[in-house]
């Protein structure tokens, strides 16, 4: 079924919308939740919550790309649950590694004073990504949006893990200086 038709089902308040969404994007959303949570049942719970959130979000929303619309919901819910569950215990899980990598870009301090426009920041990051090659941009998004493991990314690009790690490392440094140059002290 087309995304448009699924969205139409949501607007029609037809519960089939949920069946169709989970049929078409269940696996996709599950893969995102699993990367962030690691625990099968937690991930499943977040995916199920995704449909509920989608149900409440449509209408008013009419997303053009349903996959990312749903994926973003899953990512948010999963990350919220992650923060709730893992406030104390941190360790070598995939998502922890992803966050540790991101900590190289930020100071780690609470930004009470430095309260900048988040929308502005998002635009800058999009600009930064636009300037990258397709392959590097995809690697970055897979790692920091999907929280895919380095080994999965390496497999996708049929390259070595080391190559992926090095590429990501360079991109983080580049993003940090890109943002600093534009006045962001993260």
């Amino acid at each position: 079924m087309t995304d448009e038709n699924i969205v139409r089902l949501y607007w029609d308040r037809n519960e089939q919308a949920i069946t169709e969404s989970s049929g078409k994007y269940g696996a996709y959303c599950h893969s995102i939740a699993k990367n962030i949570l690691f625990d099968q049942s937690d991930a499943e719970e977040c995916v199920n919550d995704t449909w509920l959130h989608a149900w409440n979000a449509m209408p008013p929303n009419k997303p053009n790309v349903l996959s990312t619309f749903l994926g973003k919901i899953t990512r948010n819910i999963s990350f919220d649950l992650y923060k709730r569950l893992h406030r104390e215990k941190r360790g070598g899980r995939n998502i922890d590694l992803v966050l540790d990598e991101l900590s190289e870009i930020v100071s780690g301090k609470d930004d009470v004073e430095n309260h900048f426009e988040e929308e502005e920041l998002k635009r800058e990051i999009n600009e930064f990504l636009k300037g990258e090659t397709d392959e590097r941009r995809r690697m970055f998004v897979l790692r920091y949006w999907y929280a895919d493991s380095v080994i999965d990314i390496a497999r996708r690009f049929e390259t070595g893990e080391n190559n992926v790690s090095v590429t990501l490392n360079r991109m983080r440094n580049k993003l940090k200086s890109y943002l600093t140059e534009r006045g962001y002290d993260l």
Partner: protein
Amino acid sequence: MKKEELFEVLGDIDDKYINEARKSNPGKKKTILRWTSLVACAAILISAVFVTPLLTKKPAGTQPDYPKGVVAMAAVYPKAVGVGMTAEEFLESDESYTWWTELRDRINKAYGLSYDMEDYNLELMSNVLVSDKENTVCSPLNTYIAFSMLAEITEGNSRKQILDMLGCNDIQELRKTNKLLWESNYADTPVFKSVLANSLWMNEDIEYNKDTIKTLTDNYYASAFSGRPGSKEYSEALRMWTNYNTGDLLKDYTEGMEIKEDTVMELVSTIYFKAAWSNFFSKSLTQKETFHGVNGDTTVDMMHSSELTTYYSTDLFEAFALDMTDSGSMYFYLPKEGVDVNELASDEEVLKVLHHEYASNNPDKATDAFVNMSVPKFNVSAQTELIDTLTKMGVIDVFDDSVADFSPLTKEDRDLFLSKVDHTAVLEIDEDGVTGAAFTEIAITEGAYIVDLSVDIVLDRPFMFIVKAEDGSVLFSGIVRNIE
């Protein structure tokens, strides 16, 4: 800023970047949708001797080019949908939406019929699927349709015995049931095929009752053929039609098909089914593993997957189901240690688990779980002679020419009887099945829940399977005892 906040900010990057990241790499091998192919065919032959013509010569049907001397009136079947599209294109098309909505309506109309067919299905399975060493497989729905046509051409006690076996009160009810079953089970799209076909093979020298023939062509979508039984051409046409309607998958068995000289009418019913898994088996996880068959150990391609699904555990078996895109589900039953797989063939709970409400009514036997499944690739086929089975199921008169009543067929005075009832079926499940397809029935409607059970099921010894259509019909059932 904290790293968690940055992670959240990154969550809102441009959709197109998120989208392109997961796309397969250009120039690299594309994932190909693969099919599960299933096929079955049933044939019923009625033999006797005699003469007189009925059919006006009409142009031959659209399908195969039948040999000279054979007159064919092809039934009009629903048009294929999404012709020329790939599976992916079809799933994204508006045509798919319209087709699916209409099918949904037809399925709703047929809903519940499968419950009435349950006694018949169980009785058939308990007769056909039991064996010591051989693999067994049959298509209950296919035989049901074939025997319904048989009921149409009989009268009196002969018909009553068939109606009783099929669990139907009268012929009108049976006719209506068949029409609904047909319409809810007929599908021909790039993603899913469930193609039913019926045919009548008449003797050009016999005068048939036109009303009966019309009933069969109208209500059972039967193609009508007329020719000279015993001729090479007529038997060749029969094989062509059957091969065409079973996707050439049963050629080994159709070779021996023939319309013998003394045939008054032959009825052939076919089903061709092709569906893709909703959730794929990852090819990289398939391994060579041992299957402990009845005839000894063999090395098989074992597919592996982990899926959130309903896990059934009864006194006799453990079971789970895999969904197919736009279609029904396939159930796998592994007998518990110490239980003979033959016991499952007559266990009514095997069919009860197919009911949607089974899980909620039997929380002690059905739970949601992550099933770590190991499923071997297999291809089983079997030809079964059904005369004994019919006799055991109470259909007796039609086999005895002194009492058999085939009066609806022809007014001519003949001693007709049923001389041959063969059922042939093949079922294969294909390895990595489906990638990127889209219809599942995970229990989303019940809302969010947490699953904490995880079970392993390894189908490495004889097991049973059932392929259930979306309307609940049992399309195929079988027992795998050995895998070559």
